[in-house]
């Protein structure tokens, strides 16, 4: 999408890296998971929209083999929004697909996670379990794919003499 992560990683400050990680986890989470996490929040903060949720297209860029020249691989549907909580902290949500509610919840959690007093608590209660679920889903998918893997090999043929 933007600059390749590997180039950025060296000069990124830890706060930014942490935020990038939780935004990624929130974006990849399923809406039902986010809804139930939100339901368990003791108090739900008031917020104002800076940018109401909107759906659009983002051009994805890729490189052949990861090193070749860049080309446009295709467009992805993205929903994004920006909001500000009553305490002044602002959150952004960028999610795949057309779910405005997903973008809203991602932005709300992003804003709350930037607030120092709640961050550690939320990290443990929301982000870590979500990430664990995502990893296990991914492992499950890899396992399924792996079981259909076919190894091709050639039998050694005897010499003719």
């Amino acid at each position, binding site marked *: 999408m933007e600059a390749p992560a590997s180039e950025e990683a060296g000069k990124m400050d830890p706060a930014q890296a942490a935020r990038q990680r939780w935004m990624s986890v929130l974006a990849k989470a399923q809406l039902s998971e986010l809804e139930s996490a939100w339901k368990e929040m003791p108090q739900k903060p008031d917020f104002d929209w800076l*940018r*109401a949720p909107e759906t659009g297209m983002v051009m994805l860029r890729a490189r052949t083999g990861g090193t070749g020249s860049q080309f446009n691989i295709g467009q992805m549907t993205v929903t994004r929004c920006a909001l500000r909580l009553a305490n002044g902290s602002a959150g952004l949500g960028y999610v795949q697909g057309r779910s405005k509610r997903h973008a809203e919840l991602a932005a709300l959690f992003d804003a709350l996670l930037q607030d120092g007093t709640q961050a550690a608590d939320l990290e443990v209660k929301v982000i870590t379990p979500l990430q664990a679920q995502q990893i296990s889903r991914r492992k499950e998918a890899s396992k399924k794919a792996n079981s259909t893997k076919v190894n091709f090999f050639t039998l050694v043929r005897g010499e003719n003499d």
Partner: protein
Amino acid sequence: MAMLSSPGGPAGIGPAGIDIADLKPGLGDPVHDSQGIFRILLEAMARPGKVMQFEGGLDAPTPLDVATTAALLTLCDQDTPLWIDWIADTPPLRGYFSFHCGCPLVERSQEAAFALVSDAENMPRLALFAQGVDQYPDRSASLVIQLSSLVEGPATVLRGPGIRDQTVLKAAGLPDWFWNDWRLNAGQFPLGVDVFLTAGRSIVGLPRTVVVEA
């Protein structure tokens, strides 16, 4: 579906990014509000000198008025470089337009498609903005000039397409050289800049075809 202006990378992140914590919200309903505002801007250009009014709420960032903000939010996008005059050129305002319009901000007035002038007394001469070229007269700048009033200033008589006989504009706060420069601007038709004058919720269009009476 609209093409999102800042792909993927959340615009508010990073040292060069925008500090969205201090940002004011833009148009409440971007699609329909900007369509309504565009209609008003078209009418203002079609009827030069007629004072048009913006309805609807908008929390304009300092030092801008509602009309100025509404016009720029509607007109600017990622294909239109915006130039902001020195007094309004503050990080919050740059962030505001980058975030809501996704427009590139330029330092040189000649490179801008739109120019925001909040301090008309000290604005650059009209010749310092893009005038268009003979093959493409549309590659000229449109200026949004914010004034203190559009009804209490010295009277200027306007003629030209879109005006029956003549009309009187009473814009306050324009620099002394403005109407003289305007004659030169109108004289090089089809080249030249177009101007919107704004004050509070009011806006007046001055297309390059307008002729000023001496």
